[in-house]
């Protein structure tokens, strides 16, 4: 499978009075054609910064470095802003922004905003653009007449779907979705996810999706491949089923505990104690050390490298050989009650 997006050792550091905030610190992953890559992690772990970096939406003061950042044949580290804006944005990579419900300009008709996206990148006539938008509206289940409506006349779900339609109008190779279901009730969430699947089947556009959320269940539902992010680092990356069935990283184990399982409803939820580290601090060892029940001295003093524990299953942990033992212990509440 060809990779659409390849990211190697990407770092985004914001400068602040207390020093550099290492919001994204050495992230490596790749997304294949037609693949849904789910990126999960708690709030503030750098998920949004990661995609903002890829889409060049971080403020100019942010310091971005990478060994490789490639989208198709383009090297995103070197292409000019103008080329990126005109040729790659939306035609190559489109975005369904965070809280998409507020991402529509209140003074423009929804349809016109979608048309604008097309006209900004192609030589379509306005009528042709409108026709494309009608098709996309139809694909996400909005009537064509709603193009004339203003955003405030839409419900949250409708706005979300309009943003989805807008992101697909130019059939991009990669759609980035930043928390597409946040702030919506469960029923609407379900409809949108189903919508997404249908569209992928209906339209021949085989867009890859980079799905970002802190909702593990959404990720589980949608993704082919999952990355677990913590404090600016990708702790574990694996195919979806493998990650849920045989997780390696203690953080993944902890996350799994914190979400209810529909097959074991009486299971008690266990949360991970503590909170993520301050990203301005320079930590010599593993960033999860403070909260990890299985940590040892090496974890405090040496940064774990990304290792491939199985084909295509990457983990950043020193103690992967003891994983069988961890998996057993992680389901027990007492394991997580410790203090350092």
């Amino acid at each position, binding site marked *: 499978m060809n990779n659409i997006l390849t990211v190697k050792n990407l770092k985004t550091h914001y400068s602040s009075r207390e020093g550099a905030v290492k919001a994204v610190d050495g992230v490596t992953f790749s997304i294949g054609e037609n693949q849904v890559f789910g990126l999960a992690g708690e709030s503030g772990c750098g998920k949004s910064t990661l995609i903002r970096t890829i889409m060049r939406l971080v403020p100019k003061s942010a310091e971005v470095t990478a060994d490789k950042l490639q989208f198709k044949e383009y090297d995103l580290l070197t292409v000019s802003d103008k080329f990126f804006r005109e040729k790659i944005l*939306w035609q190559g990579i489109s*975005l369904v*922004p965070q809280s998409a419900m507020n991402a529509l300009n209140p003074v423009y008709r929804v349809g016109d905003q979608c048309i*604008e996206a097309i006209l*900004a990148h192609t030589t379509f006539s306005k009528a042709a653009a409108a026709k494309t938008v009608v098709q996309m509206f139809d694909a996400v289940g909005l009537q064509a007449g709603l193009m004339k409506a203003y955003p405030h006349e839409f419900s949250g779900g409708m706005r979300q779907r309009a*943003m989805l339609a807008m992101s697909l109008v130019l059939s991009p190779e990669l759609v980035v979705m930043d928390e597409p279901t946040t702030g919506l009730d469960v029923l609407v969430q379900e409809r949108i996810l189903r919508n997404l699947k249908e569209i992928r089947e209906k339209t021949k556009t085989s867009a890859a999706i980079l799905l970002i959320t802190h909702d593990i269940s959404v990720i589980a539902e949608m993704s082919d491949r999952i990355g677990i992010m913590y404090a600016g680092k990708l702790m574990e990356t694996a195919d979806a089923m493998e990650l849920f069935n045989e997780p390696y990283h203690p953080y993944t184990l902890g996350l799994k505990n914190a979400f209810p399982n529909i097959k074991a409803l009486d299971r008690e939820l266990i949360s991970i104690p503590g909170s993520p580290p301050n990203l301005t601090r320079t930590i010599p060892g593993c960033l999860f050390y403070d909260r990890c029940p299985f940590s040892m001295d090496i974890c405090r003093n040496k940064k774990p490298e990304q290792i491939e524990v199985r084909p295509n299953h990457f983990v950043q942990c020193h103690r992967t050989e003891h994983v069988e033992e961890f998996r057993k212990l992680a389901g027990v509440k007492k394991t997580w009650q410790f203090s350092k």
Partner: protein
Amino acid sequence: MKFSIVKDFWVAQYKIIRGNRFGMFGAVVLLFFGIIALFAPYIAPHDLWESLRDSGGKMAILRQPCLEFPLGTTAMGRDILSQLILATRTTVLIGITSGLVSILIGANIGLLAGYYGGKLDEIFMRLTDIVYGMPFLPFLIVLISLFGRNIWFVIIAICCIIWRTSARVIRAQVMSIRQRQYIQAAKARGCSDFRIIYRHIMPNILPLLLLYTAFNIAWSILAEAGASFLGFSDPNNITWGGMLYNLWISGKIRTAWWWFATPSICIILLVSALVFISRAYEEVANPRLKQR
């Protein structure tokens, strides 16, 4: 298509004004003065500078309002009604020109400074600070003594001064709107900066823009009246302030009440009409004012 946009715009303006009694009053007064300004040369019964004689053949000097001279005459026997009508034209011209030009300057500086921030913002805002430090009258006096008495210099002087407030206020509003999700989304969509500023941000500050346009026009009229009352205006183009100046130098200000009252009332009426209209827009821009 294009016509319907223009029509929609005016219908929207009418709806804003209609809901407000003072705003409606202001609109009527504005329309009245507008029509007079437009047709001034055809309405004015007498020549501006002609010394008139009454039907009996006597010089009509300092006549009180009567049938022959509805608003009286000046110390030189000139018809006040005619002067007032022709002065309306000059005053409205100065008001609208400098009001619009100043909002054009102020809005663009505000939009660019607010949107780009950083160095550009710093430069523009320090420039605004400097202009805030410039007093209007001395500036005008210097300009006029350098280049001569001409209404265009009055307009230029007004424009150079009053853009400052609109620039500040619009910048602040732009800074808030710049951070909204939909602007970020527009950026992600690949909109150019120019497009974001003028297509996405500007419509969102339109009520504020209209409010300050009205304010600027009102302020221009007042500034012009003040300047011409002090004699710093074009002697060939009479304005309301200029009429008051003529009255002052004739020395009849204590007795010729009709000569004094009419231009003053016109200034007050037109300026308050504009303020009432801007109040109506302000209520749209800030609906909380309505609840009080």
